[in-house]
Structure formats: C-alpha cells, structure tokens
C-alpha cells in the first residue's frame, strides 16, 4: 500500500482499476462459462484458475457483482448441521473461511462470535442434543447449553420471552461467525481477475445451446459464446436458466426477507437464532442489528419486501429483547431463495453433458461459498462429482434418496 501511494500519488491518472478489469467485448469462445457473479460463481472461477490452471474462463452477470443473494444474506457462517454430509461439507467451508482474508489480502471482517440456536421447547432441546452429537462425532465444536449459560453470554435477553416461550437452553456452536459479504465476492472476483478470468457484468444469458445432449454454447445479450462447459450458480434465477435446457428440478423460489436497525452501541456479541420465534439476529461491526426471519409463505420471483414481515419480526424481537422497543428499523430487503424439498443443495453434473449446477442453496448459501467454489471447480475441471458433494446430486430425487437437512435450517421454514 505505501509503495503504491509513492508510485501513483503524483501521477495524473490511476493506472489500475480499483478491483477488476472491465472488458469491452466477449471472446467468441471460452473453456468454461460461469453464469452468475455472486460469491459461488466467483469462488468457482477463482479456484478454477488457482488450483486447476483453467484461466480461459468468463463469468457472466445479469446485474452487478454480488448484487444477488451474496449481498442480501445475513452473513452468518456456521457448520452445526444435522446430516453427516452437511456437517462435513460446512466444516470444510468454515476452515476455508478462516484463511480467506490472508488468501485475498483483503479484510473480510471475519468475526468469530459464537452461535446459539435457542430452544424454547423440549422437542427443540432434543434436536439440539441430536445435532450436538452428530457435530461432535465429526469434530465440530457444538454443545448443548442451559438457559443460565445463554443468559451469561447475552445479559440483555429476556430469558422468559415475555412468559410465553421461555428459553430452556440451546445449541452453542463456538466457531459461528459473521463476515462482510460484499468483500467475499470482491475478493474472489479480484483473485480470479488477476489470474486471467474475465468478469462481464450487465451481461444476461438469453439461451443455452445444446446439441445431442451436449452443451455447445451460450447466447447472451452481448452475443454468442461457444463453450463446452457451463457452471450455473444463479440462486433464485436457477429455474429460469434450467427452463432453457429443459431440465426439471424440485427447486421452488420463495423470497427471504431481512432487515437492519439503526446502529447502536455494541451489546450483542454472539449470533442468536430462535426456531420457535422465527428470528435470527447478530450485531454488525457498525452496530446495526441484522435480523432475519423465515421464508415468505408463498412462491414469488421478485425481491419485493413487505410490511407484514417487519411487523412479525419486530414483534418477535421484542419478546426476546423488550428494551429494543424504541430502536428504529433502517432498511429491509429480500432475496430469492431457491428451496429444495430436503433443505440440502443440488450440486454437480446434470443430464446435459457439460452443464454443471450449483443451486438449491435456499437460505444457507453464503456460509458455503468457499467450499462450493472449491468443490464445483474440481467437478468442472474433472467432469466428475467431488466426493464432498455426492450427497447433493440432482439424481437423489429420482432415486428417492434425499439428504434431510431441514432440522438444521436456521429457523423453521
């Protein structure tokens, strides 16, 4: 940084773009085309270039980098899942997260907070014990704790929740963390860009060419690209892309909304999730309370947000933290969550040769960004599903072999 300052301080123009190079036109062909410049797509591009030496890659983005669910989530990172497949997968992801800032030379504001999944009922305590045992078996830090432990970690909490949903205890996951989500997309984007990957923003995919069951090219709003490999990482737009190649999946889209309060002094260190009250909450580095709730109750393909959501979420927040009654809500927004029946993602190869899918990430995709990039780049490079994602293939629905992860979704959806 100081050397750059010396070099450029007196020059008329800054010769380097801030984060990425911009390209005037698309090339006529690429080895790999990635649809979607969110965290997952850019991470895959980054690992393709860094680990597999495939750099003739372009990333197409309809809007702008990280403008989809990468920039709309509540930034929570954890690995206390329920199924062995899920635990192993997310544990690898948490480990990758911890080195990412070094890898990028970029501050991701990765902040290890500890994560509570609060239990208000005996049934929820039972699920906590189950999850803790599965987690511990795979070496993930996860403990069942009592109400006094929760109260000690969060002194401001009303442990009785106004009397109608008293907290009995919960699952405590020490590695739970938050990170700055835009920086993750930018870091991966810059890393990929530096290694020769082209990122094309405001370039929409209009069609996908398939001949004899094999992928041959992509039609975009800026012309056709010939390619044999496409990775689709577009979250809530996945069904629109899959319609172009006539692949049917169980994915359905519901909006997931979130909101932040005005900034207040730091008072909440850990991340809290309550399945019964349908909330999750953490305090950002700026002091805002970042809050989310369950999915909208019906299918919508837009990012509209509703007053009903704010009212419902605020009411539940006050059950737990009555002293927040005068704190104002600053912003609310929504993302399109691509849901699957078993609450596990759909990853890997598809019936169209050369078309790879990274989708079905619903409400839990941000925390998986590094490991998705890593495993999907391996899958694309080797044309074979990576061993960590074999539980998440599209075929599992045809074979009635689901990976039931609903019990570990952060709130009851």
């Amino acid at each position, binding site marked *: 940084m100081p050397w750059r300052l010396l070099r450029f301080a007196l020059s008329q123009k800054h010769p380097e773009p801030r984060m990425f190079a911009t390209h005037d036109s698309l090339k006529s062909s690429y080895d790999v085309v990635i649809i979607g410049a969110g965290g997952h797509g850019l991470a895959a591009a980054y690992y393709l270039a860094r680990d597999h030496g495939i750099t003739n890659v372009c990333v197409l983005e309809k809007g702008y980098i990280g403008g989809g669910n990468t920039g709309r989530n509540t930034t929570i990172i954890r690995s206390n899942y329920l199924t062995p497949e899920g635990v192993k997968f997310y544990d690898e992801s948490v480990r990758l997260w911890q080195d990412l800032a070094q890898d990028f030379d970029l501050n991701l504001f990765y902040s290890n907070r500890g994560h509570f999944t609060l239990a208000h009922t005996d049934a929820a305590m039972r699920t906590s014990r189950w999850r803790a045992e599965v987690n511990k078996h795979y070496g993930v830090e996860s403990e069942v704790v009592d109400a006094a432990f929760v109260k000690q970690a969060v002194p401001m909490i009303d442990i009785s929740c106004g009397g109608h949903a008293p907290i009995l205890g919960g699952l405590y996951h020490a590695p739970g963390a938050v990170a700055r989500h835009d920086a993750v997309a930018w870091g991966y984007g810059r890393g990929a860009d530096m290694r020769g990957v082209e990122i094309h923003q405001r370039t929409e995919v209009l069609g996908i060419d398939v001949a004899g069951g094999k992928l041959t090219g992509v039609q975009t709003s800026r012309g056709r690209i010939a390619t044999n490999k496409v990775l689709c990482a577009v979250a809530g737009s*996945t*069904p*629109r892309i*899959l*319609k172009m190649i006539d692949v*049917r*999946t*169980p*994915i*359905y*889209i519901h909006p997931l909304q979130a909101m932040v309060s005005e900034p207040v002094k730091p008072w909440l260190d850990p991340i809290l999730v309550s399945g019964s009250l349908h909330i999750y909450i953490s305090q950002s580095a700026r002091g805002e309370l970042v809050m989310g709730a369950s999915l909208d*109750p*019906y*299918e*919508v*393909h*837009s990012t*509209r947000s*509703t*007053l*009903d959501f704010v009212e419902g979420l605020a009411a539940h927040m006050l059950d737990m933290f009555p002293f927040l009654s005068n704190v104002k809500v600053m912003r609310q927004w929504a993302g399109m969550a*691509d849901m699957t*029946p078993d609450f596990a993602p759909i990853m890997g190869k598809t019936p169209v040769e050369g078309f790879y899918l990274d989708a079905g990430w619903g409400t839990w995709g941000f925390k998986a960004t590094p490991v998705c990039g890593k495993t999907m780049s391996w899958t694309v490079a080797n044309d074979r599903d990576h061993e960590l994602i074999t539980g998440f293939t599209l075929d599992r*629905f*045809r*074979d*009635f072999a689901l990976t039931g992860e609903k019990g570990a979704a952060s709130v009851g959806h």
Partner: protein
Amino acid sequence: MKIMTCPINGPRVISEFAYGGEIRPMPDPAMATDDQWADYVFNRTGAPGVKKEWWCHTPSNTWFVAERDTERDIIQRTYLYAGDV
C-alpha cells in the same frame, strides 16, 4: 397489506390464507413408471409465470384455485375448483 379474494367470503387480507402449491395432475400410480412418479413427487415448475395454485381461506377452511403471476406477485383470478383445471 395484500388482499386476496376468497370465492366464498370475498376480499380478505393475505394473512388469512394458506398457500397450497401449484396444481399438478397426478399420474395413475398403477401405470406410472418410477421416473414419472419421482417427477410428480418432487419436481416443480420453478420458473416464473402465471400459475394455477391451491389456496385455502383458513378461517372458513375454503380451498379454491388462484391464478397468480409469480413474477409480479399479482393475483389475477380466484375461483372454486370445479374438477376441470
């Protein structure tokens, strides 16, 4: 606040209604192949568009059909099921 029209009870707020998913014709279980059955059980028309859906007005337990634009979130038409959708 969003309003939906129940064919029996008239316009009501959307919080009184429960979404029942898209209407999907069931293949004959005795005749369908395993793949057809799996497709029926799991797969959905996930892309946006105007869809025919099951909705229920929960206070009166009235199930009916709604035609809804899932991209713009506009309810176009609601009517009682007559066995022909």
